């Protein structure tokens, strides 16, 4: 094992994250209660994911950089550790340095209208603050910003020798498009085998996909519970956490399935008991929200504020949405086909912003109706220009459905873009103006 100063720097944040989750785990491991068990299981998976990456870097083991929508079941089947290339800015321990990092990224000359979630990893790569993987899988959709990040990867001194592959996403959504993308995923498997020394065994892939299906089926079942009035959970747990558990850490892992089983149990218990999103005294669900994007990363008090101040519960968000179909594991062909469909047509953001804009309208229509939504909020993250461009379609759809629609215009990572106070003012005025609160 040879640890250089540069490697130390690359994994400094992952070590910090690992230590943070180790500490959290030690704090919660003996605490009683079903909700605490859910959090403990989640922390254990997160801790393990960070430990794995640190171990790979420290001991020169193969690992890759990739994304949630790169069919991560294949990485699990290949026993290939991976981290999300854009995840550094989402690390729990990154919040202390986030604003300084954003400023530094601008000082590098990066355009301020480039999505902050892309600007930050560019900065981390250029500053040597991200682990340099054995190989990298890129992302050519849903936005033009991501390929810019890959261009940086190709030119950075430490990264330019890292082999890269990006599956080419077609614009359409028919069978021809899905089959085309399935071939792209096969090429991705060949690429990974060639550059990492790990091989893809089809029986193992079927096993992982079966396990993944179990988790997804439980997630779908759980989401039905959120249709209940009151919803058993709000912005946490479930929602975006379910998305992360299904495809961001270790896809198709029995530990994630167990987490979903427990999430479902917790949800069912709360529905049977008539409990809403919060156990706080006097809490009552008054407004059911559909938040159509990522949840804000830096303003952690915002979602609790909505619940406490207005009884406004985020019943559904873009990442908690479940539009998936299960993977048919009967043959290699069906597996690649269904993985292609899941990663091309179902994964959040990719689903809405990659091709035609109809899914923005269709998702709103289904979710508002099925989840008895009182108001739709499009935060209008500055990087999600695709979403902002479709805001007219969303507004019209909400108008047809008779449900109020709010466009905010904010940076989910940078509270200076639109301050939390301004966002709160906007929400307050919106609720008051619409007679909701």
């Amino acid at each position: 094992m040879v640890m250089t100063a540069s490697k130390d720097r690359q994994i400094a944040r992952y070590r910090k994250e690992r230590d943070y989750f180790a500490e959290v785990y030690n704090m919660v491991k003996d605490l009683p209660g079903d909700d605490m068990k859910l959090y403990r299981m989640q922390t254990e998976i997160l801790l393990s994911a960070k430990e794995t990456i640190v171990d790979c870097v420290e001991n020169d083991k193969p690992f890759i950089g990739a994304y949630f929508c790169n069919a991560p079941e294949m990485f699990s089947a290949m026993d290939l550790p991976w981290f999300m290339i854009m995840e550094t800015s989402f690390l729990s321990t990154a919040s202390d340095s986030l604003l300084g990092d954003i400023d530094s990224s601008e000082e590098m000359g990066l355009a301020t209208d480039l999505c902050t979630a892309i600007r930050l990893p560019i900065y981390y790569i250029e500053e040597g603050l991200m682990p340099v993987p054995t190989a990298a899988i890129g992302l050519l959709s849903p936005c033009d910003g991501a390929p810019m990040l890959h261009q940086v990867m190709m030119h950075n001194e430490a990264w330019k020798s890292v082999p890269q592959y990006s599956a080419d996403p077609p614009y359409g959504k028919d069978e021809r498009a899905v089959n085309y993308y399935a071939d792209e995923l096969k090429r991705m498997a060949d690429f990974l085998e060639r550059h990492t020394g790990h091989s893809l065994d089809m029986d193992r892939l079927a096993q992982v996909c079966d396990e993944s299906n179990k988790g997804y089926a439980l997630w779908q079942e759980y989401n039905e519970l959120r249709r209940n009035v009151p919803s058993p959970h709000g912005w946490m747990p479930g929602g975006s956490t379910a998305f992360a558990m299904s495809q961001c850490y270790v896809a198709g892992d029995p530990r994630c399935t167990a987490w979903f089983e427990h999430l479902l149990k917790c949800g069912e218990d709360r529905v049977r008991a008539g409990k809403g999103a919060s156990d706080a005294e006097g809490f009552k669900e008054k407004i059911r929200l559909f938040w159509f994007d990522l949840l804000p990363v830096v303003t952690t008090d915002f979602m609790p504020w909505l619940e406490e101040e207005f009884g406004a519960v985020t019943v559904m968000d873009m990442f908690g949405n479940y539009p998936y179909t299960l993977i048919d594991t009967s043959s290699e062909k069906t597996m690649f086909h269904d993985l292609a469909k899941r990663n091309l047509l179902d994964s959040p953001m990719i689903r809405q912003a990659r091709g035609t804009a109809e899914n923005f309208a269709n998702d709103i229509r289904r979710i508002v109706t099925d989840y008895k939504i009182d108001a739709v909020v499009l935060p209008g993250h500055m990087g999600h220009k695709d979403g902002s461009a479709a805001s007219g379609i969303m507004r019209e759809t909400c108008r047809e459905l008779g449900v109020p629609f709010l466009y905010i215009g904010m940076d989910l990572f940078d509270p200076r873009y639109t301050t939390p106070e301004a966002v709160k003012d906007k929400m307050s005025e919106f609720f008051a103006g619409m007679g909701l609160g």
Partner: protein
Amino acid sequence: MAAFDDCIRDLRSCVDLVRLGAASNTFEVDLHGDPADLVGGLPVKFGEGANPGVLLRSDTFLELGNPAAGSCAAVMWTDDASLLADGRITRVGPDIVGAGDVADTDASETPSFPFAQFLLVAGPDLCNEDHEQILQVQHVGDRVEGYMVRSTSEYVWARVGNDAAAKGFDLESLGRVLLHLAKTAIPKATSAEVVFVTTSKDDVERLSDVAGRAKEIGREIVSDLWKERGFDLDCDFDCGSCSDEAVCDDIRDVIVATKKKARGTPA
């Protein structure tokens, strides 16, 4: 408006083939008269909020249309009333009552039927603007006690509760609800027909081809409607071809200057 006419004809041929293999396990009824009478004698409550909560796994008697067991659904509409048998409900395959004997229990923990549901609507004045409303009808919502359509983007995947099954809720009941909704929620609808198939996954997959084509036609209709309203679902331009590119570039410069000013560095 004949966009769906070929699909309706193909559906008839397909259902006839499936019916041949279903032997005597078929049901057909023609119901005419006031739409209110269609739901008058239902064994379960009907109306807005009749099924206010969610149906938990433990309270479910049977699932219809779990994709693992086979599932497809579509709506088709036409201005040619002769293509429909108004008021007809057709079931090919087993019904909800007695489902425990024949349901597929491998697909999930809950017994599940393969399920195809087709809602056909006709009216001389029906037009593209009515399409989305007709689409909504097929999901029934929370209007039937003990019956819940799960929230999926591609299927009609439903649950029948233990209590509803015990009260005698069956596919004729569901068909009556769909006919009632079609005739009341869509003012221009003069006739409606419902077809259910529950025979096998293979049969449902055969019908999926017709359903898929109907959905594609529906997508094109929706896309055209958005275009008429000034919204294009397709994107065929980029920054370089946009007349506002210079404005965007100016905004970028302003943001940089503002941020520098806020940090106290010279603009």
